[in-house]
């Protein structure tokens, strides 16, 4: 019996020990006020559950060993039909345990669900099959357009960000286990969650991914959260509001030709001409590409953002992640993936040159 108990405790220890830094997406590796409050609650119910398992499992194991039929023991057991007092007792014990669990559960729940207070950053999260759009409604450019980016969300460390989320197609779920419990992203509804990253994780990237099955490429609908020091966040935000230059010569200029012919069917960019005039080109059906070169990943954070990966992504998108562009209906706004336009090597390299230059 003791051996079993030790085994359980050892297993439990392994489970808890696994919260180390080589588990970037672990809920047991909390790095925000919200995730820490959940983790604290989890630790409590985990040990309580382990205790219950040891006691009840121990009773079961004891019964199996102690009351096993032994050679020579032909005596029939006493025919006991029950014991009402005992049974009432073991109905009440779980009630007590559950009350003990329920109180911190409710406290934590209402804390987490309370609206953000004081100085907080608002972010709008929009789920798409199979990528994430982030808008910052309080960070506006000179024309009043909000800062818009894709698949990589930046938030400041040590302060609360309030995410208001919705979807343009099916239900997704926004999950960064180290920063918060998940929240579904539902078409036609707004859901809200708070994230207050620890001040001391400034500069860290925290990965997350869609947690509600959303079709073909659900597994590849990942994203990255960059927790910036407040000053770094302001620099980043200012850069992201800038337009990207329309190149006037070289490969990038040729790439811009292709960009405005094909890519702008779904993608959008805010560009500045040589004369300084700024315009927004394209449609906002796919990720905004204005500062594509500043991102660390592509294709829904499936690959690192390198020239080779980008070339492969343009050349043969479905070799990077599975999609269904044959079902796209641009007029209806239904986009299920990036089509393969059959561009030649030259055109691809030109586009890579352009997009990687848009820092």
């Amino acid at each position, binding site marked *: 019996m003791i051996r079993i108990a030790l085994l359980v405790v050892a297993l439990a220890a392994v489970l808890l020990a696994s919260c180390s830094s080589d588990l970037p997406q672990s809920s047991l590796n909390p790095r925000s006020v919200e995730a820490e409050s959940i983790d604290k609650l989890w630790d409590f119910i985990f040990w309580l559950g382990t205790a219950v398992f040891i006691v009840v*499992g121990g009773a079961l194991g004891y*019964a199996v060993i102690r009351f*096993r039929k032994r050679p020579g023991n032909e005596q029939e057991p006493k025919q006991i039909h029950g014991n009402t007092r005992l049974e009432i007792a073991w*109905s009440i014990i779980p009630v007590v345990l559950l009350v003990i669990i329920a109180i911190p559960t409710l406290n934590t729940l209402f804390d987490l*669900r309370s609206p953000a207070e004081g100085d907080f950053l608002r972010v709008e999260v929009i789920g798409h099959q199979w990528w994430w759009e982030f808008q910052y409604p309080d960070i506006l450019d000179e024309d009043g357009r909000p800062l818009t980016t894709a698949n990589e969300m930046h938030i400041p460390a040590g302060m609360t960000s309030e995410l208001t989320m919705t979807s343009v197609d099916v239900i997704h779920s926004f999950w960064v286990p180290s920063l918060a*419990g998940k929240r579904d992203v539902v078409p036609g509804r707004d859901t809200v969650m708070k994230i207050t990253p620890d001040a001391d994780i400034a500069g860290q990237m925290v990965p997350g991914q869609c947690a509600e099955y959303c079709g073909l490429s659900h*597994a590849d609908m990942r994203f990255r959260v960059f927790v910036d020091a407040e000053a770094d966040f302001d620099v980043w935000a200012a850069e992201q509001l800038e337009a990207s230059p329309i190149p006037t010569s070289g490969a990038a200029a040729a790439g811009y030709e292709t960009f405005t012919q094909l890519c702008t069917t779904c993608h959008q960019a805010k560009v500045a001409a040589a004369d300084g005039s700024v315009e927004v080109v394209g449609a906002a059906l796919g990720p905004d590409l204005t500062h594509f070169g500043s991102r660390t990943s592509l294709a829904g954070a499936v690959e690192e953002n390198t020239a080779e990966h980008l070339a492969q992504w343009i050349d043969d998108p479905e070799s990077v992640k599975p999609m269904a562009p044959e079902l796209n209906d641009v007029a209806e706004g239904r986009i299920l993936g990036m089509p393969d336009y059959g561009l030649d090597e030259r055109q691809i390299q030109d586009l890579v040159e352009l997009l990687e230059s848009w820092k």
Partner: protein
Amino acid sequence: MALTTTPDDLGYTPPSTKGLWSWITTIDHKRIGIMYAVSSLVFFLVGGLEALLIRTQLATANGTLVSADAYNQLFTMHGLTMVFAVIMPIAAAFQNYFIPLMIGARDVAFPRLNAFAFWLFLFSVVLLTSSFFLGGSPDGAWVGYAPLSTQIQEYVRMDYYSIGAQLLGFASLAGSINFVATIFTMRAPGMTLMRMPVFVWMSVVSSFLLIFSLPVIGVGLWQIFIDRNFGGLFYEAQASGDPLLWQHLFWIFGHPEVYVLILPAFGIVSEILPVFSRKPLFGYSFVVFSGIAIGFLGFGVWAHHMFTAGMGPVAEAGFGLATMLIAIPTGVKIFNWIGTMWGGRLTFPAPMLFTVGFIAMFLIGGISGVTHAVVPANTQQHDSYYVVAHFHYVLFGGAVFGYVAGAYYWFPKWTGRLMNETIGKWNFWIMFIGFNLTFAPQHILGLDGMPRRTYRYAEGMGWDVWNLMSTIGAFLIAVSFLFFIYNLIASYRHGKVAGNDPWDARTLEWTTTSPPPVYNFEEVPVVHHQDDFWYRKYGVDEDGRAVKLTPEQAGKPDVVVEEHGMHMPSPSYFPIIAATGVALLGAGLVFISSGPIGFAVIALGAVVALWGIVGWAAEPVTREMH
């Protein structure tokens, strides 16, 4: 099978049991039970193969065995197959075979409806599985969340889902009504409700759960079907439809469904434990009433599947507390089972091994279930591998272990032969180790952030080792089932002859021959006790210990004198015709958007179904006996 009475004495000639035709036309609850069991086992192989493909794909990071598209169909079909084509029918198999035997009845209340339910179940699963070859399988997960399930109308995949699940629900409904009617109206004299075996009680509860929950999902499935094929807007957010409505409708069915899968297994272990502990069930009425309580509470906790959907904290708190409540009757059951073993004289043949395994595994699944009720923790666990681990502990460690225990326990009654004990022990230990190796690591994977329903995962997430362990475990489970199937076949052919009562058991099914005659009992017993058969064999001495009665003490059991001979239903082929028609109708509906072929099949199905129903209605219920 030695009959002491001749057919003339019975006033009844049993129908032939030879040849395929006798199976097609049978309305004998025992043969229908066997057909359910065999179908369940066959579909278990299908669902198991799907599971092995899934686990092989996930053995390493960035697996490439199957495409994302294939993977999504595989996990959807794995869920649908295991729930609707394996666990529900294996429960129905035991219920069909043993409810009448355990309550001292000659058959079920509606034998032809029983046959219809089986055939419709079988054809529906065949229709659903045929999708692999005809148009693609459902790929929207077994929960079929809208608007994903209504989104892509170019493929018929989710039409298979909406129609297939609809038909399966129809079949279950017919089966459930039949069980309830049987249990409430056909018990032997003296078999009061509180003398019924716990298995029968749990079957009443699970049947009622189905009767009340299936209509809800039925409505939802039609809405999905209408959205997909007739431009309905029930779940279209842009037209003010609400995707969350589907989740409510699905889980008002889906959560009671979980208890439908597990309650009959609760019943089975409640039968097996007393037999191998040589003690009555501890706290019979507590076990029965806690089962009923689970049934009622099971309807009040559905939204704990939706704690991340954005219901708001008040609703979440309410459903969290309700979910904690349901742990109480469930815990009571576990305590009573341990209480049954306490002070007994335990032996551990295979049925008992699987039963103890069931209790231990269900205990783990129950505890992880309570952690789901802790709403904030749930937001980390939901839709992660932690949940996958939890429900496999309940449905595999729980339900499947329970049904395998039942198979080892009742096999001698089905076949007249015992299953091989040595192979049975190998079967148990490999399955027990393989099961834990597969699903225990998944708890850790989920907490470490691995979402479910993902066809691949990246390197460097710290998930590789646990996934590999899990895959190895899955293959061990497969090996254990090879032992099981070999044991079934070999024991059926050469197993040790069992006799009527090989386990010295307690309930009425063991009073008749193995296998039982078509009419179950030559004479309908009169029941005086709970565990009546035990009290025909044993008395109690002044210490409260069981003592074997001498034949003189035991005397002759009380029986009913039937003045008019037996009334047994005759074989009929109309149930299978009606079921064929309904299934064809469904197949046509799947392809309704594909032009005239769909309508032609619908019309054909309607005609065949009508033929079956009219023929059924016009057919005399029983041949004249004498």
